[in-house]
């Protein structure tokens, strides 16, 4: 009785083993090609060539797809995907795009205001200055002449003998950066202290000395968010995109242990 059962059992096992031997891992060898994939390939063909593919051509498209899939799977089986920089890079790219795309497209008003408050300095409107000046060339005793000239102009208003300045006489609505570009930083640093409608100086520049009459100065200010809303939105989206990947990496990084040879010589 026992022997009979064990015979049946052995035969069952044998059949099972033969079955496995003849059809190993059935599912792994199936290639499913979705309708979607085919239709998208056909429409790509259509837009390129300008007509529908013939039946032959469809067969060829599908055949290409199949061959590609087979080669791909065989390559995976051989482990060709391991340590391939191109594949690594591509996958890294994919997850980067994925992280960037999961952002909501339209930032809320609250987010915009928060972003604006945090980055206010980027939207600061610089103070500007309008002034005229007398220039005394460094080629011609500029220090002494400009000192004499300021005394003269403050005591009476007689005509001053000065030199023409290469970049002109009157400067309208210039920011400090622009003044630095034209005269040098030593010169523009004086503009915080100069008082309006009064000849001041002499001030040294990269080209000599100047006496300056400040006609107008507009203080710098932070614009209302409504004035720069477009720009804030553009900047916020850009910042979000940029930070999406870095925050993701930062979150994950702690789970990894990084090992680098400390003795590597460059």
């Amino acid at each position: 009785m026992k022997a009979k059962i064990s015979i049946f059992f052995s035969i069952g096992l044998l059949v099972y083993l033969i079955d496995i031997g003849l059809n190993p891992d059935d599912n792994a060898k199936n290639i499913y090609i979705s309708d979607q994939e085919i239709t998208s390939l056909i429409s790509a063909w259509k837009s390129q060539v300008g007509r529908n593919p013939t039946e032959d051509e469809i067969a060829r498209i599908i055949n290409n797809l199949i061959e590609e899939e087979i080669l791909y799977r065989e390559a995976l089986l051989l482990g060709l995907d391991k340590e391939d920089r191109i594949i690594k890079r591509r996958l890294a790219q994919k997850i980067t795009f994925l992280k960037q795309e999961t952002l909501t497209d339209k930032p809320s008003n609250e987010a915009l205001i928060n972003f604006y408050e945090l980055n206010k300095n980027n939207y600061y409107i610089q103070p500007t200055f309008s002034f005229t000046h007398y220039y005394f060339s460094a080629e011609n005793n500029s220090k002494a002449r400009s000192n004499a000239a300021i005394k003269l102009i403050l005591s009476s208003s007689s005509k001053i003998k000065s030199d023409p300045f290469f970049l002109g006489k009157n400067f309208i609505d210039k920011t400090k950066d622009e003044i630095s570009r034209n005269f040098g930083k030593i010169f523009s640093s004086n503009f915080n202290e100069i008082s309006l409608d009064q000849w001041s100086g002499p001030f040294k520049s990269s080209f000599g000395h100047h006496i300056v009459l400040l006609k107008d100065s507009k203080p710098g200010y932070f614009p209302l968010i409504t004035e720069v809303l477009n720009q804030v939105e553009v900047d916020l989206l850009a910042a979000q995109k940029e930070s999406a990947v870095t925050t993701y990496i930062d979150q994950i990084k702690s789970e990894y242990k990084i090992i680098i040879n400390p003795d590597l010589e460059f």
Partner: protein
Amino acid sequence: MKKNTYIRKILIGTPLIFIIVLGLIFVDVYDSRPILNLFKKTQSDSALQLVDYSVDKPASSKAMPAVNPERNAYFGDVHVHTKYSFDAYVFGVTASPDDAYNYAKGQGISHPLGYEMKLREPLDFYSVTDHGFYMGMIQAYADTSTDISQEDFAKPFNNLNRPENLNVESAAERSNIFSSVLANAIIQPNPWWHPDTLKAWFTKNTQRALNSFDYDIHKSAWSDIARSANEHNDPGHFTAFIGYEFTTSTDTEGGNLHRNVIFNSSIASIRPWTRIDSLNPEDLWTWQDGLRDKGIDTISMPHNSNGSNGQMFEMETFKGNAINRAYAEKRMRNEPIVEITQVKGTSDTHPLLSPDDEWADFEIMDKRVGSRPPTYSKPSGSYVRQAYQDGLTLDFTKQGNPYKFGLIGSTDTHTGAGSFDESNYWSKVGLLDGRPSNRGSVPLNQAQGKLLEEYMSAFNQPVSTVELDQGSYANTGFTQWGASGLAGAWAEENTRDSIFKAFKRKETFATTGSRIAVRFFAGYDLSSIDLNADSLVSEAYAKGVTMGSDLMNEGNKAPDFLVWAQRDKNGAALQRIQIIKGWIDMNSGTPHEEVYDVACSDGMSVDPISNRCPDNGARVNINDCSISQDAGASELKTVWNDPDFDSSAKSFYYVRVLENPTCRWSTWDAIKAGFKPREDLHETIQERAWSSPIWYVPAPSDITVIPLGGSIAIGDS
């Protein structure tokens, strides 16, 4: 019976068809090609199709500065490559046009080797001018997600610029790709019956016939460049021109005929006109004329004439025909200015051409551009000063003057970021010369030297290292390059229109990277102007002509020249101003030149016999590159008269402003790395600026000029 009629039909029909075809061919051999022209009627010209690339952007909150009728000096660079250039991408550059414009506005961007590139001061105008030829294609080959990258010819480019491959050691792979793959494998046409070949013919768009070319990718690269220029263009504050480089050369000798083309509009052609359309610059001008007929103005600006093997400024046309007036006018209509200086050397003059000019040996680059191995480029016909003289000679023989151009400088950087500063230099081809040892300013270590030798022998190139006192140096030609090239323009305001007009009237100047500015006027009553009055400039404009103009003869009077230069406040002080005069002998057309010092620094005056300023004592300390602080001028101005003026001689005058000497980049590189400067290179240079010339036009001569050979095609009318 039936069989017989068939045979009869064939017997009669075959010769009949044969005769008809023969007849058609016979008719069509005439020059007018009537039959072929019938087919040509069906062609459309894709290069003349216009696209408006304007972008919607938030209105600028900044106020528009006032217009200055006396004109401001604006500085810029109109020769910049980004990743869209076939070679820049191969050089490891990943900077986009947006990155390039941000750099020009003062932001730091990243060099392919990882360090930051940043300007000391922002620029006023900039133009990204990627190679039109294969624009955008290499990038697409490298991006493995595109279809085209899967083609065989694209394989070597796949993921070329992945981050871990951005290193100097990949230079061998890169140079090899650059010259061999590009030259041969890619430019294979499809067979004649291929749909793309037919499309190419019907739309006059040859590149579409090439197997490796994808028109959509090409167009999208070009439209991104145009979009970026329009987005960054900020009237009143920053000007960005849509532009590209027409990268052509002579066929056999490889003489460099490169030109940059910029558009005066947010509208541009749907694609750049490239060397695949034609190698002949005259065809480029025809295309530009065509665009002008449609209301879009462009200028093209030749560069690196120094590497043209004498072919940029030849005495004959591209096809070897005689130059005539129509040619001269067409060239000048489209090419008002020339880039005299850039990273790959300066093209003012050569010591062999100007043996009496002590400053002629300046940043000479004597190799043909892109040649392999670097091959000698003949000086004659390659330099600007001689071209001006030859222009006068051509004019003497009644052929017109095709060489009456103004001057600018620019960099030709391929990293998106121009390198203007000797003390902070990154050359221009990314990974290939981004490190001092690679550009030959400090010795190679053993591994680098070995690598370079192996690579050179692998590609059958001559030995390119040289043994000097401090060791073995790379000698691949980069030592002849330098931190150079700025364009200066005198314009009423910083807008596209105003600066473009300055280019057109040649009111431009060039510098070697320093922001030296120079004014230059000529007239018959300029000595009456008070040089110390504020009205100096407005009077000079009223009484004279400025750079780029003609000064017409006025009763054989001798002209006055007024010149005024201002130093770069971040550079060295000025040493002297010179006026360079060229003229021809009106009896024989023989060219002459003379260099006059006209203003000296430190209150010194010009020696009337030697026409030279005395030494102002400015020196450079080669151990640390420090310079004398007490010598030199912050500005120089004078009115000058030509002591040898001949009222009957066709002549030109241009200004050269010289700074006190400073360290050359190679010296800076060496010192920073703890070496002495290399003994076979110049240790110092004198940064300089050149104005566009003023041409003196004498009264018409009554001498009859009949060249031997007596061609009547040239004519006088």
